[in-house]
């Protein structure tokens, strides 16, 4: 309730203030997944069905809230409310008041709906996929918390809160990649994802410092307003640091070269998690950040961004074309598509990037969920056939070499896969075509305005279209066509063709697939110009005053034909080499250049050689130094023990001895005196006699 309270105390700065109802909705939007996380985390095992209904119900409410906010904001003035977070005294005596709050514009609204919607669908899908898992409640708790943090990231009006949420989603991603932590590969993959992201986040942190140094605020919109008034020539270096830092952060989160190595390994997580986090939402956060901070990038940063983006897109697609794991293909495809988006921001078309982000979220989530269905089906079939324990199938259930011919067993899944794959490769009448065309158009316009070598960039972009078509067609042919390569009787595919998989798994996939069609994004199937989405998103983004060629020229018609030709070429390549691919993939291990591509040019091994091994060597060196230091300390302490033993001896025999001698002697004197008083009257008499004799001697001598 603290959150609600603070939201009620706020004062408007930029845009219209939120009405009471909207504030309650925002608070509810954030609190409901948080509430479901807490209840599932604490009491999940005691709830009926381990509480999945609770998480799904709360997520449904969140989606309703997001839709309400969407209806309030879409096409209207942005809403903004903030409160004083804390006061920060400066060295010169000033006190800077740090504000935090929520900022709601078209972009935030559409992203809120996207995240809650896909999260809801993934949760519904997981009911079937995660059935019987030992940590079922924990899984839903993590998903809920992830969604809460992701919504916080989107709603934040300043970079500091955004960074906190950014780290939180990274942490949740770590937990969910390593969800099956008993598998060593999953534990390693989660650690790797976490560490690689740290590298990017160091950049983000530097960018935060630079941001505050320049603008004395973390609020993105206030800083944008300040941008025109600042003497930026003087701040060139800091602005470069800011730009490259943000880019580094985005490269970590959105898996851009050379930090993309964590995403393929992240496929060790449960498949619905891959769909939600590693395809639709979290990895897109980097692109979201770049688009939000677009006005702050200097031309050098934008150029770097464009080159990194298109290079990532190209090598991601190359690596995808040689994978044998069904999820790895999709992972590399995600890297490739994120590369497109980063390139889009770099060539000055963040609205096209965000458009691609939104369309990609739907069809890639759909593709991942479908791969989940396929894996599930293979697993159950093998389990049914061999009567062995689930999850301990001796075959690799994700390996496409064990699939083939699945269109007969999973017809609806096959249709959905076809549509989603069509959207991914960019066939007309699918959403992916519109967004990819917008990105390619932007890159061509950028090349037209720039130097000759800049044509390389759209060139690689088009080559990636070809590769995308190739690897998706290859996957389609390997998984769904041909004959089943796993020699199982058809009936062991448990599900008859009429009921291939439970509706909780199929319905989300179908919904996502339908949303991969063009009509939901633009009336015209061939052009994004008529899209209802793009202009509204563009209106939410501020222009970049540093960018030389920002003017959108006319529609360039040859892009359409060229990209179509590339798609057809790629598809045809996959189709005509299908026999060779099947034969080679199935019998022999891939060799030569294919091997290079499959292992992403041995980037992981290169990192192991250049970074990991020296780090370990350094670690061992410091360990040895520690040993030496330890030894020294040990000798030192031994010496101290010897000295103290000596002192103890002195204490015992000299100091204590002197005291004891005093005691002993007085004791002896006492004894002497006591022996005189022996109670025997005759001895008293003798003593007095002796005394008398002594007296006489003394008197007379």
């Amino acid at each position, binding site marked *: 309730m603290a959150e609600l309270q603070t939201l009620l105390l706020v004062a408007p700065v930029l845009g219209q203030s939120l009405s009471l109802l909207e504030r309650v909705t925002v608070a509810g939007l954030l609190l409901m997944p948080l509430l479901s996380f807490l209840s599932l985390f604490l009491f999940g095992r005691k709830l009926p069905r381990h509480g999945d209904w609770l998480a799904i119900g709360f997520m449904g409410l969140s989606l309703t809230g997001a839709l309400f906010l969407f209806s309030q904001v879409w096409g209207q003035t942005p809403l903004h409310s903030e409160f004083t977070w804390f006061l920060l005294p400066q060295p010169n005596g000033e006190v800077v008041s740090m504000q935090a709050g929520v900022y709601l514009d078209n972009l935030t609204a559409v992203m809120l709906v996207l995240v809650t919607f896909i999260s809801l669908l993934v949760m519904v899908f997981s009911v079937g996929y995660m059935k019987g898992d030992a940590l079922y409640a924990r899984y839903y708790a993590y998903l809920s918390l992830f969604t809460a943090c992701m919504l916080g990231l989107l709603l934040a009006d300043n970079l500091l809160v955004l960074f906190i949420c950014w780290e939180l989603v990274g942490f949740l991603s770590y937990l969910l990649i390593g969800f099956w932590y008993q598998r060593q590969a999953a534990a390693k993959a989660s650690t790797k994802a976490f560490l690689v992201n740290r590298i990017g986040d160091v950049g983000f942190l530097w960018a935060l410092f630079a941001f505050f140094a320049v603008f004395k605020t973390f609020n993105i919109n206030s800083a944008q307003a300040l941008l025109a008034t600042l003497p930026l020539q003087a701040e060139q270096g800091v602005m470069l640091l800011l730009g490259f830092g943000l880019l580094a952060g985005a490269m970590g989160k959105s898996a851009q070269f050379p930090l993309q190595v964590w995403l393929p390994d992240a496929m060790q997580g449960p498949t619905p998690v891959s769909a939600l986090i590693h395809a639709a939402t979290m990895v897109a956060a980097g692109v979201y950040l770049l688009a939000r901070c677009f006005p702050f990038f200097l031309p050098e940063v934008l150029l770097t961004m464009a080159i990194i983006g298109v290079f990532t897109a190209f090598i991601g697609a190359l690596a995808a074309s040689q994978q044998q794991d069904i999820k790895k293909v999709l992972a590399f495809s995600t890297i490739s598509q994120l590369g497109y988006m980063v390139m889009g921001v770099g060539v000055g078309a963040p609205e096209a990037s965000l458009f691609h982000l939104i369309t990609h979220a739907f069809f890639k989530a759909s593709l991942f969920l479908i791969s989940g269905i396929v894996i599930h089906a293979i697993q159950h079939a093998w389990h049914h056939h061999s009567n062995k324990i689930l999850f301990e199938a001796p075959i690799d259930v994700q390996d496409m070499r064990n699939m083939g011919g699945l269109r007969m067993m999973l017809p609806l899944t096959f249709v959905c896969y076809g549509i989603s794959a069509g959207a991914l490769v960019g066939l007309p009448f699918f959403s992916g075509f519109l967004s990819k065309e917008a990105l390619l158009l932007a890159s061509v316009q950028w090349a037209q305005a720039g130097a000759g070598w800049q044509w390389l960039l759209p060139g690689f972009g088009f080559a990636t279209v070809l590769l995308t078509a190739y690897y998706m067609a290859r996957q389609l042919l390997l998984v769904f066509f041909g004959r089943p390569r796993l020699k199982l009787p058809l009936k062991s595919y448990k599900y008859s063709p009429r009921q291939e998989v439970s509706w909780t798994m199929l319905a989300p996939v179908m919904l996502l697939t339908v949303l991969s069609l063009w009509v939901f994004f633009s009336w015209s199937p061939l052009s994004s110009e008529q899209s209802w989405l793009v202009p509204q998103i563009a209106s939410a983004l501020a222009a970049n005053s540093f960018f030389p060629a920002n003017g959108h020229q006319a529609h360039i018609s040859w892009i359409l034909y060229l990209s179509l030709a590339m798609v057809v070429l790629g598809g045809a390549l996959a189709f005509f080499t299908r026999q060779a691919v099947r034969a080679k993939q199935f019998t022999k291990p891939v060799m030569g250049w294919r091997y290079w591509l499959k292992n992403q040019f041995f980037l992981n091994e290169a990192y192991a050689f250049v970074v990991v091994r020296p780090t370990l060597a350094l670690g061992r060196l410091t360990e040895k130094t520690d040993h030496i230091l330890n030894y020294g300390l040990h000798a030192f302490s031994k010496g101290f023990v010897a000295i103290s033993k000596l002192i103890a001896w002195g204490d015992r025999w000299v100091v204590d001895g002197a005291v004891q001698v005093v005691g002993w002697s007085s004791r002896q004197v006492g004894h002497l005196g006591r022996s005189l008083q022996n*109670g025997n009257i*005759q001895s008293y008499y003798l003593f007095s006699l002796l005394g008398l004799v002594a007296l006489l001697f003394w008197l007379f001598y």
Partner: protein
Amino acid sequence: MMAIPLLHLLVLGAILFCLGLAIVLTKRHAIAILMGIELLFNAANLNLVAFAQYDPDRLQGQVYSLFVMLIAACETAVALAIVLQVFKYFKTAHLQDIDQLNG
């Protein structure tokens, strides 16, 4: 009548004193010790009488020794009574066994 020389008397008194002393220091029984004490008294009396030859007119020594005897008789009566009481209490008259004041 020829007076006995003084030295003889003194030597006799000393011998008597030593005998009494030896009895007092060595005897166990309280009554024997009392007897030794009587010897000591008598040694002293002998000295008194011996030195009285230098005072023949007033016979102070002889008179003083008569007093000593009288007092000694009284003292012996009291001492015997005490010895009786001691014997009654301690069931012994051996002085070595009566050492209650041992410090």
